[in-house]
């Protein structure tokens, strides 16, 4: 039991440490490479992962076309715990990712 407890407690610690080190690395290098625009995309992706998974299975932006997403997203604006700006960043990410996936 103590062994299992150690493993779980260790995992908790490891995730926290990894996450915090990720924070530092992210702040230093930028998670999506240099450029403010990419920072917005990283935030958008974070919002997408956090908010959309509350009600949906793993869904990827590429599963819908860039033309389909605006109507889908418009119905979600009031359902997510995001401000208008944050929701816009989420939308930017989803549509850009969808476009990139569909590009030849």
């Amino acid at each position, binding site marked *: *039991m103590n062994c*299992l*407890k150690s493993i*779980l*407690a260790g*995992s*908790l610690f490891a*995730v*926290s440490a*990894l*996450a*915090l080190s*990720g*924070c530092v690395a*992210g*702040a230093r290098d930028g*998670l*999506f*490479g240099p*450029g403010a*625009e*990419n*920072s917005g*995309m*990283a*935030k958008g*992706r*974070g919002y997408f*992962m*956090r908010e959309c*998974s*509350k*009600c*949906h*299975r*793993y*869904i*990827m932006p590429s*599963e*819908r076309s860039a033309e389909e997403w*605006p*109507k889908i*997203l*418009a*119905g979600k604006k*009031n*359902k997510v*715990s995001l*401000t*208008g700006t*944050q929701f*816009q960043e989420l*939308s*930017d990410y989803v*549509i*850009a*990712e969808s*476009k*990139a996936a569909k*590009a030849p």
Partner: protein
Amino acid sequence: MKKRMHSVVLGGCIALVAMQPGFAMAATGGEARIQELERQMQGLVSELKNRQNSIETLTRQVASLESRISTNSAVQGAGPGVGQDKAEIKSMIEQAVLAREKESPLSPFSFGGYGEIHANFNEGSVNGQSRDQIDVHRLVGLVGYEFADWIKFKSEIELEHAFVEEDGAKGELELEQAYVDFLLSDLANVRVGRVLTPLAHTNQHHEPTTFYSVERPNFDKYIIPSTWWSDGLGLFGNLAPNLSYEAYLVAGLDGSKFSNDGIRNGRIKDVPSLNDMAVTFRLDYYPFMGNTSAWGRNLRLGASFYRGGINNGVEGKDPGKSGDLTIYAGDFGVRLSDLELKGAGAIEEINGTQGLTVGVAEEIFGYYLEAGYHVMPEAWKTGKLKNSDAVVFARYDKQDTQHGMPAGVAVNSDKDRHDWTFGLAFYPVPNLVLKADYQVLASEGADPDNAINLGIGWQF
């Protein structure tokens, strides 16, 4: 003589015609007209050449722009290539939102819901009677309201098992969530009210379209008793784009209701006491979210914690009962193309107990691991099924609610369970799922009956 007369008449006619005004001019004017038409024709040809040149120039410019956009996309991965793209997306979303708001005068509200109906067939029987049943397990309404861009309310009201009996023996009408978010910054936001206790994963993500089995994993029944809500207040936000957190101070559980099945019955569903409060928090971390390749981008690692007192019975202090509950939990999920993996584990410690029911463990332990594979061929995703999906899955659940017992208390090995579940989930549309699974249930003591389950679930 006659011939001569004919000649005279013919000559007169010719003379008359020749004497008509403009005859001579017509002869010379036709030539001028032809020349004029030739000039016009040359002008048109010249104009046509100019336009052809313009078209060729425009074609070259379009090709050049396409090339630049393509290059930018390749360099910046998923990012929109130019600011014009972002402006376009913003405009598209704004137009869609405006169109939606025009459709309804209730635009500050949000409405939703989910539900699930199950048919359960057990291989065994009790006293010769079948326990097969059909169960309208859940019907849930979600209502939200946006007071302002930064203040949002959300609620979830659920009817379980279709009917609420007066004595409460079966069926429940319950308020699972009711909270207000104050969205202050990316880093810290305030949440007040009744929230889903942020332990493991399923408790906060329990819509039937988010998991593949008919019933929720047994881990989420016996170890993290989903649905488990807590009343209080706390903070949530993002420490980085790939790291989010939630932390709450909440009312605790009622330890007097704990049993040899674990802490499930200790949830206080109506008016919780603040006698023995608890703290709980979780972290969600996406370590490879920034990868340009698809591998691991969806990997999520979660860690969660709970610690609090358990003397909260009888809507207040429960004389003679005491103890502390600590929970360490971890969970993960990842999708690698068509393969999906997820799991969770938790250890619970109940310390310093006094006056609890005999048979309540000091330590409870459980975990589950699940693998799913998306099997719907792309070629079948056409027509009515263009947005469909199908997933086959296998899951192993381990739950031991008697993992560590107080000195002198015998272990009930029936509560040391290890279950397998195999099944299929078919999504004809993304928000509705048809499920079928087979469960092989076993324990260190007497094995429960195996089961076949069928279900339909939806969310909107």
